[in-house]
């Protein structure tokens, strides 16, 4: 993906995180992947100036402590964080989740397939989107 900007993966399920990482590796994405387990940790990571700002955030919705929607509500009020594209990567097929996250300005909404091969296809789509999309500060 673009340069070597890190990817922030907000995901509490270890195997899902592994799946994302494996898919990225399979697709020859070499950007470093930073994994945090919930919204709070994600905010902490993003607000820590020692950490490089990620090029994209892959966000799970159903997480302990602070879920994806709550994280988006905070992030989209933050002038610095608002510009980082967020792609929702979730199990939920719920219409309401889709509508709400798009209202909170997500760049994409991807449903995690059970089949790993399909999962790889989803990540491929994200990679494609990110490769084509321009970020505002670049």
């Amino acid at each position, binding site marked *: 993906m673009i340069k070597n900007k890190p990817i922030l993966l907000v995901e509490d*399920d270890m*195997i*899902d995180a*592994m*799946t994302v990482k*494996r898919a990225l590796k399979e697709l020859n994405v070499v950007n470093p992947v930073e994994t945090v387990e919930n919204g709070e940790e994600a905010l902490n990571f993003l607000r820590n100036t020692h950490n490089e700002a990620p090029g994209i955030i892959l966000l799970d919705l*159903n997480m302990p402590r602070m879920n994806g929607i709550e994280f988006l509500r905070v992030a989209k009020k933050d002038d610095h964080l608002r510009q980082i594209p967020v792609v929702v990567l979730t*199990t*939920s*097929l*719920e*219409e*309401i989740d889709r509508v709400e996250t798009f209202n909170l300005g997500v760049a994409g909404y991807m449903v*995690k*397939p*059970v*089949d*790993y*091969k399909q*999962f790889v296809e989803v990540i491929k789509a994200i990679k494609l989107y990110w490769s084509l999309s321009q970020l505002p500060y670049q």
Partner: protein
Amino acid sequence: MKTQHKLLVILLITAVLFFAGFLIFLNIQEKQNEILINAGIEQQRSILETAIKSKSEVISLTTYDYTYWDDFVNYIEKPTHEFAESNLYSLFNSFNINYVGVFNLSKKPVFNAFQIDSVELLPFIPAPEVFSKLADSNFIKYYKLTDAGLLEIHGATIHSTADEARNGSAFGYFFMAKLIDSSYLKSLKNLTGGMVELVLESNYRGTPDDNTITTAYPLEGWDGKTLGLIELKKVYDFLSVSKRLSTISIWFLATLAFVILIIFFLSFNVLVNIPLSKISHALITKSRDDRQKLLSLNSEFKKIGALIEDYFGQQEKLEKEIEVRKETEAQKEKLITELDTANRELKDFAYIVSHDLKAPLRAIGSISQWIHADYSDKLDDDGKMQLDLLLSRVHRMQNLIEGILSYSRVTRVKEEKEMVDLNVAVKEAIEMVSPPEKFKISVEENLPTVSYRPTHILQIFENLISNAVKYNNKENGEISIRCTENGYDWRISVSDNGPGIEEKYFEKIFQIFQTLQARDEFESTGIGLSIVKKIIENNGGRITVDSTPGEGTKFEFIILK
């Protein structure tokens, strides 16, 4: 004002009216008495007058008879002792008189005798005015007071028998007098039947105080002066009877009035007042005892009492019914609340469970694929096949979970109804299903616009069309979508020329997770039709299926207008 008070006032007014009538009655009674007394007075006056006249008539007739007699004329011319002895003295005894006087025209006495009980008294000569009056009228009657007493004097001019009419000149004057003595009064008493008295003055109008009427006859002198009166006092029993009668009537009527009032008041109290107060008391207290008393009331009030009792009975029944209904309602409400909670928990449960089940399922799927990829050199064909089977079961489980989620979503997700154009919705559904090109789908033109949740309409058509496509076993698959208007609803049918369904499965196909083919042969969750049925029934509609095995199936459902 209470009814009792009003009644009292009415009674008082009645009493006042009664006593006013009573006074009028008394007045009439008094007037009647007065008339009676007046009539009595008149009668008594005439009785007295008649009696007196009858007595004086004897004398006046004798006087008249004697005064035209030729012998008497001769006697005045030449008075003889024999004539006086035999004739004139006989008058005293024959007519019970006290005075006889014969005068010639020069008013000199020819015979002049005055005696009481044959005792000669000093004779007297009438006043000269009496003679001149006699000359004018031929007769005179008057009273004169003498030392002996009151005299009733009759005088007449003397004529010859030839002068029967007494038109010619008189030969002399003749007088007879009777003393108003005790025997005279006694005979009057006998004639009148009352007390007779000679008095100087008299209240001769009479008063009924002692039931006695007093009348008087004036005795006048030649000059018209009253010298005295003969008074008649008579006791009349009818006066006392009338008086007594009026007193009795007064007391009788007063007592009667009083008794009637008391009876009226008491009977009103017993017949009306007491029943009414019982009724009002029962109505206020509503107690069963008071109401029971109403049933022992009399006549009309008994009916009212029964009506009231009936009314209260009904009311009690109603109250009881309401109580029971309330209880039932409360139970129902409780049940509904419980059901609601259970339902919500179940929905949440379905959502959470299926949601949370997906993550481990995905992990199993992913890892089985990784093993397949990473360790393919170490696995034989058997091992690989088992991993594939594992993966296929992961897929099936995922489908089942998705099925539960979408089934529960029908009622879980709240979406506003919109006006949905079925022409657009059906087209969209067909696009979503994307049937093979050789599949022929005919849709009726001008489908209606209905009020529905857009996703629900899509789900209905998508499921029905995809089922028709999925199970079709003919070379040229056909689907026909039709709509008819029927009163308050639309009837929409989706027919196909597929394998058809046996009638015994008509119910089963709408049940969740029920499929007619083994899952290994035909991958289906059996959720589609159950979702369609749930959506349609949630919107007040109904779905039915009709099918001839081998020829095709027709689903028809109702959408309310």
